[in-house]
């Protein structure tokens, strides 16, 4: 996994609201100092206004709704029967806004500027969204070439909209799978429609589990803001190939994806280092 220079994991402070209950657009939700019709601030999580609840990210919408007491825990008794199934209430019922805010240091001031300088780039990373999302930051809509798919990591270069030295507002409108299917007939996987999408299929129910009512819709894996320089590294790969049959010698074939995100040519030094994690809780460079 990547260990960037600076990383801020966004796993707290999220609030959520059902999409059709929110009057603001994504741009409006993420514009500083937006005030709602009742006079409260969208991000005033201390006093949840009607329709906004504390959200669990990473997690699913059903997870958030259970946590907020809207629905009972589906894994106790027959509680699942009390939760509306997306097949009956429609995809809009489980289409939700997720919002949070975060601060970025002023990297261009005297203090931090020496570390990251003008080359700093800011990335907004989502490790898993089921099934698709519209993402807004500080009043701008962020566009990704592959918005759909449960098992796809996505990164946005948000350098141009990031607010250094102040607050940043993030809103994510999460849409359920496009073919949530009907489970009224029971059996293995209901009507199987979920398999038309690239998503988890057990959610239509199987011989060992009742249907998951929201089909696992949500921001289900880590969200993070990552600061790097102009050149980024992704997907390191190491292949060990033994020489001969003794297993006493091995060749390490190491590769990494290198991207120059800037508009200027760049010269630099790539360094790969192997460290052995010893049994005595210490470690040393081999």
């Amino acid at each position, binding site marked *: 996994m990547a260990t960037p*220079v600076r990383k801020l994991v966004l796993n707290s402070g999220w609030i959520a609201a059902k999409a059709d209950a929110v009057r603001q657009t994504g741009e409006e939700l993420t514009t500083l100092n937006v005030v709602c019709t009742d006079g409260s601030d969208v991000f005033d999580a201390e006093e949840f206004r009607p329709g906004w609840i504390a959200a669990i990210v990473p997690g699913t919408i059903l997870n958030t709704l259970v946590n907020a007491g809207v629905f009972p825990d589906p894994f106790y008794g027959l509680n699942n029967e009390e939760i509306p199934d997306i097949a009956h209430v429609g995809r809009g019922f489980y289409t939700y806004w997720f919002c949070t805010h975060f601060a970025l240091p002023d990297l261009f001031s005297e203090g931090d500027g020496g570390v990251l300088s003008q*080359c700093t780039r800011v990335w907004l990373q989502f490790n898993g969204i089921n099934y698709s999302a519209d993402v807004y930051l500080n009043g701008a809509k962020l566009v990704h070439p592959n918005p759909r798919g449960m098992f796809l990591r996505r990164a946005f270069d948000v350098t141009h909209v990031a607010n250094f030295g102040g607050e940043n507002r993030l809103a994510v409108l999460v849409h359920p799978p496009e073919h949530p299917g009907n489970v009224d007939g029971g059996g293995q996987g209901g009507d199987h429609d979920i398999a038309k999408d690239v998503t*988890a299929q057990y959610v239509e129910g199987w011989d060992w589990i009742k249907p*998951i009512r929201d089909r696992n819709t949500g921001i289900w*894996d880590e969200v993070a803001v990552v600061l790097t320089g102009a050149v980024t590294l992704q997907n390191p790969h*190491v292949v060990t190939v033994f020489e001969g049959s003794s297993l006493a010698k091995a060749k390490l074939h190491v590769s990494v994806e290198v991207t120059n995100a800037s508009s200027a040519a760049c010269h*630099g030094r790539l360094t*790969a*280092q192997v460290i052995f994690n010893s049994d005595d809780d210490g470690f040393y460079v081999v």
Partner: protein
Amino acid sequence: EDVLSEEVDLEAGENHLHAFSPMLHENPQLWWPNGLGKQPLYTLQISFEAGVSNGAPCYMESDSCSCRFGFRKIETCVDETLGGGRRFFVNGHPLFIRGGNWIVSHGMLWLSRERYQTEVGFHADANLNMIRVWGGALAERPEFYDACDERGILVWQEFWITGDCNGRGVPPSDRNWPLDHELFILCVRDTVKMLRNHPSLAFWVGGNEQVPAEDVNNKLMKELRLAG
């Protein structure tokens, strides 16, 4: 040994795969499955330091990344003398597979490192040495694989093809699902890149008890073999 620095020139907007010169490593500590030995783990750290191009050797770290890996060799073959069953060898030693089936850690995807460590630990304590991750659920998370790396549990990871797209059922499903094959392959590529360094990852399977649609399966076979 095991530290390598290489100078790189990048054009504006350039994106490329940089392959380091091979590094020779002597007497590696071998990673073994649960019950056969220890699970020593190594960490690979890669960093890029940008330098000023006007001749001044002023390097500043632009980005870094790391991954854990282990030294192990997994071989498998179908043995007709054993009824067509698949045999496994790790570091040259035959391994009797004692496997468990894995669906998902929590139905509302309430996942955590601690939960993965506990649940994978149960499998290891029960003397199992392989977990099959069923294709109807997830490509499991790196935290799951970290736990398997540390406890010596080999992983059989399936992609997202199940009885929901086997052409049977009432109403009948379609063997050509999912609808967007390119998206499926895109997700496979990203998943492979995310998980491929874990020593516990033993092999990929196209789907549950069946193969994906022909074009998808052909791409999987071709690209995964190339990656290997």
